[in-house]
């Protein structure tokens, strides 16, 4: 009996000792802890991403034919990105990312740039990019980037600069400025072209076709916030101003009197999109990803986008993520369908991207990332994502994407 009592008292005293450290003691312990030690780490390869997609589309409102005609398009795109990382003994981390994208598309309506239907229907776009990011030990980041895009009728040079920092209680704020200096080659419908050289399936196009500039200036501000251990939110806002040649020269517009004209839009456009993301960790198997965006511009378009995705982990290395996206927009004040515009309209377009419509986009993605790589290679993860898109204008499309990551 005495032994039992002594044992109980001894265990109780042990408990008291375990939780006996005062707040002062723990603070003193933290203060005497050594600061983190950083080592020089030369620039080295981090990962390669390859994103490949196949897209096909169908519809009956081709803008090239004035809002009627086949909108059949197929697009095969490939984007390769290589990332290098370095660090120094002061705790700074440097990231250099180089990218190269190549897209090839065919569009049935492109044949009708020529009134005989003999224009070439395919094209290739090449777009390299370079980005540099520097992150300090206190969480501040600066970034710079340059992009270039080249396709037969459009050339673009883009520059960007960004700055970000962390705030108390799990917040992060970053801003970015972008400038695009673009040139639109003035390829008019053959019957309206003032230039003697006409694009045909046989010709290479004329180097004598002039270009008109298009400028885009945009700023973005993003704020990410941890709400609790399972919930985090992001707030995103952009402001963009575009000036210059904002229409496309090969889009036709038919007036109600039967006359045909080249699409004409104002030389200035101001856009404000604002979005919010909310991601919630339900349990070890299910996460909810949600997104909402509101958009408005000075061309009269107002739009809402809502997206929900629910990744479900089948096991730690394999997950399936079904998703649904709903989109609705009002029409631009400059839009009217085929043969609806009149001579009194100052600006006019029959491009159904500017009409009022709703759309649904739904599909599923799968993600696999086994610990030793796929098929025991350096391919560390593979994503496959399929979606079907449909508008109330009648346009519908399918897209399938593959993402390969090598580390």
């Amino acid at each position, binding site marked *: 009996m005495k032994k039992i009592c002594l044992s109980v008292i001894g265990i109780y005293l042990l408990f008291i000792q375990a939780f006996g450290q005062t707040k002062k003691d723990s603070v003193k312990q933290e203060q005497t802890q050594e600061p983190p030690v950083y080592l020089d780490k030369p620039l080295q390869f981090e990962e390669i991403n390859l994103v490949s997609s196949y897209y096909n589309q169908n519809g009956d409102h081709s803008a090239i034919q004035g809002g009627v005609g086949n909108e059949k398009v197929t697009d095969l795109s490939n984007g390769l990105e290589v990332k290098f990382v370095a660090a120094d003994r002061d705790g700074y981390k440097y990231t250099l990312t180089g990218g190269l994208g190549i897209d090839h598309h065919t569009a049935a309506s492109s044949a009708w740039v020529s009134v005989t239907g003999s224009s070439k229907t395919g094209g290739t776009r090449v777009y390299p990019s370079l980005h540099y990011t520097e992150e300090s030990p206190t969480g501040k980041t600066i970034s710079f980037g340059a992009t270039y895009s080249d396709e037969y009728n459009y050339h673009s040079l883009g520059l960007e600069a960004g700055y970000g920092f962390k705030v108390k209680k799990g917040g992060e704020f970053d801003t970015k400025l972008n400038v695009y200096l673009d040139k639109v080659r003035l390829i008019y419908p053959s019957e309206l072209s003032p230039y003697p050289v006409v694009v045909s399936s046989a010709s290479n196009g004329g180097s004598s076709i002039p270009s008109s500039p298009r400028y885009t200036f945009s700023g973005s501000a993003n704020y990410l916030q941890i709400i609790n*251990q399972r919930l985090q939110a992001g707030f995103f806002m952009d402001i963009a101003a575009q000036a210059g040649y904002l229409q496309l020269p090969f889009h036709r517009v038919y007036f109600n009197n039967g006359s045909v004209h080249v699409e004409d839009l104002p030389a200035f456009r101001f856009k404000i999109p604002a*979005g919010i993301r909310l991601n919630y960790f339900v349990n070890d198997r299910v996460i909810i990803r949600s997104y909402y965006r509101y958009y408005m511009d000075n061309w009269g378009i107002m739009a809402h986008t809502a997206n929900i995705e629910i990744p479900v982990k089948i096991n730690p290395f394999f997950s399936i993520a079904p998703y649904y996206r709903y989109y609705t927009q009002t029409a631009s004040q400059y*839009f009217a369908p085929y043969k609806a515009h009149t001579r009194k309209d100052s600006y006019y377009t029959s491009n159904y991207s500017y009409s009022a419509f709703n759309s649904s986009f739904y599909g599923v993605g799968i993600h696999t990332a086994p610990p030793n790589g796929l098929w025991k290679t350096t391919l560390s993860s593979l994503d496959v994502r399929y979606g079907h898109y449909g508008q109330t204008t009648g346009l519908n499309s399918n897209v399938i*994407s593959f993402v390969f990551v090598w580390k």
Partner: protein
Amino acid sequence: MHVRPGSIIGEPVSLSGKTALKMKKSTFTFLCISILFLLSSCVSVKEYQKNKLNDADMALSSRKAEKNELNFQSYREGASGANGGKTGGGCGCN
């Protein structure tokens, strides 16, 4: 049949300007209040408690696989931006 510019054939008449403006203001107010309520309930989360938040599916950005989806949406829709993609420029898109 006369079609008013800005509508597609068969589309019902849109809301009047005042009603649309009221709806825009009330939507904006509701969103602001929701965001303020959300931000006021933030708690400090230590690094060792972030295992759920650090899950790849919890990232507050669009997926790499969505890159070309954002691209075709910028061509086929009037709206763009605030989603990791471009807000304009760089292509013959909207």
